């Protein structure tokens, strides 16, 4: 299948963030970056689909400044065939502005399947994939926790709801955004890393849409009080119950 996977470069979340002097962004100094979690699942899903169906071509697309080249190289080292950077100075917060740039690139690409992560783990808007589908007039399934496109002209998927799940069917070509459950991303092999250096990475200007959503302030949430161990073993249960009743007042 001809598949496009749209990925985003995000900071590693395993840190204590600081707010930048501007007050509208996090301080980037010392942060490490990687492909957003769900986008990794999408890249893996694309690889597995073509491994099972015995062929095709996968393109990874990432919007942002030149630093995203590293994220695209990682996708290539996983086994993705080619990469496109949609270059812009900074990634806007407005998902619709981003969706327009991606749709402009994807349009006319004759993809059978366009995959996204369910959401980017940093801005957490869960908006770009379905917006791209709307702009391209394609059917869309968001947050698929299972995906089967082996029929090649149509697919089925499962979506997780609050306390339930639903199954859906859809025709191809389509846009699907990938949730937890579809595939865990593989680690790039040494061979993959070497091969990635020779794969094509095209850089094009991002045709961003007008921005109507901006970040006016970023702040850190209030800190939790330090944890407290109240006792050991089953003997601590009466004290716990007392605290839940008198202090926390939840029992």
């Amino acid at each position: 299948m001809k598949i496009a996977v749209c990925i985003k470069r995000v900071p590693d979340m395993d840190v204590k963030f600081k707010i930048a002097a501007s007050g509208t962004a996090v301080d980037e100094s010392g942060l490490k970056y990687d492909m957003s979690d769900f986008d990794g699942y999408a890249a893996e899903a694309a690889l597995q689909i073509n491994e099972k169906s015995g062929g095709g071509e996968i393109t990874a697309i990432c919007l942002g400044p030149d630093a995203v080249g590293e994220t695209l190289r990682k996708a290539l080292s996983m086994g993705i065939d080619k990469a496109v950077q949609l270059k812009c100075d900074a990634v806007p917060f407005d998902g619709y502005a981003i969706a327009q740039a991606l749709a402009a690139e994807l349009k006319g690409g004759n993809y059978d399947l366009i995959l996204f992560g369910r959401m980017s783990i940093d801005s957490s808007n869960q908006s770009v994939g379905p917006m791209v589908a709307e702009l391209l007039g394609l059917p869309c399934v968001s947050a698929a926790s299972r995906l089967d496109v082996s029929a090649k002209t149509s697919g089925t998927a499962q979506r997780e709801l609050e306390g339930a799940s639903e199954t859906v069917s859809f025709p191809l070509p389509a846009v699907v955004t990938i949730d937890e459950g579809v595939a865990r991303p593989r680690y790039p092999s040494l061979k993959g890393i070497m091969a990635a250096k020779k794969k094509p990475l095209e850089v094009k200007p991002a045709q961003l849409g007008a921005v109507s959503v901006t970040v006016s302030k970023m702040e850190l949430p209030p800190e939790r009080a330090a944890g407290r161990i109240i006792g050991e073993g089953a003997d601590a249960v009466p004290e716990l119950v007392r605290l839940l009743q008198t202090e926390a007042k939840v029992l």
Partner: protein
Amino acid sequence: MANFLAVAEARNGELRKVAHEAITAAKALAGGGDVHALLMGGPGIAAKAASLGECGASTVFVVEHEALAQHNPEAASAIIAAQVKAGGYRGVILSASAHGKDLTPRVAAKLGVGMAGDVTAARMEGDAIVATHPVNTGKVVSVITLTANPAVVSVRPGAFTPVPAATSAKVETLVPSADPAASRVKTTGLTTGNSTKLDLGDAPIIVTGGRGLKAAENFKLVEDLADAFGNAAVGATRAVTDDGWRPHSDQIGQTGRLVSPDLYIAVGVSGAIQHLAGMRTSKTIVAINKDKEAPIFKVADYGIVGDAFEVVPKLTDAVKAARASR
């Protein structure tokens, strides 16, 4: 003062709690303007319209169609966008539920505007909507300004407590311009979990089991504790859902559900950073773990170092006794 439309979510013919929350959020933004609700569902859904007035919807538009009995994102988003245009609203409010998150970006794109997703607070400031939205797995809070008109906003479940506003709603039937049965994406089945159990998003108490429980069948321990409380749901860590002990929909954490209950009890949960991302905003956190160095104890208001198989049954009995004596 402006008029807002709120999308009232229903599943399987029943209103969901988030329906009232969306109306409450719309009411807050409308500042004295009118709030209309839009309710879509299968035949018979109109019977649920009246209760939407109780939170302040002055008019409820109802679309009944066999093909809307289950989630139908293409038809629903088209109906919402058409009603936003026809009604000339300043904005439309949806829930950031699983279905709402699916619909919101589609509606925004159909209207050709950006959106504010999963907001925990929102207010009008001059001509803009200013909203709060947690980012970076809840470690940072962003305040965002939305200048788009109409505004498309989804509100985080649980963030807007429904405020009763005794309005008697006028009910009007809408006929969609396109056939809802013609959608390309079709929902072919809905599997509800244990429907007698509370959902993680609605439960004031959550009991979560981790790898420390050693086997899927030992989840009975946390289920019994949840049952003793009577108003608790059972969650799981990613290690547990990856191993297939529990369904993915039960996973709490960075890539799963983000929860914020009054009481969160972590049993045999080490407290990996990805798990903490999903539950750190809980009001009170209890941790029971054998390893006193487990990171979960750093965020636990009350920690017990001990074997879950000893501590939890005792706690279950004590909770039953405490509730019986109330």
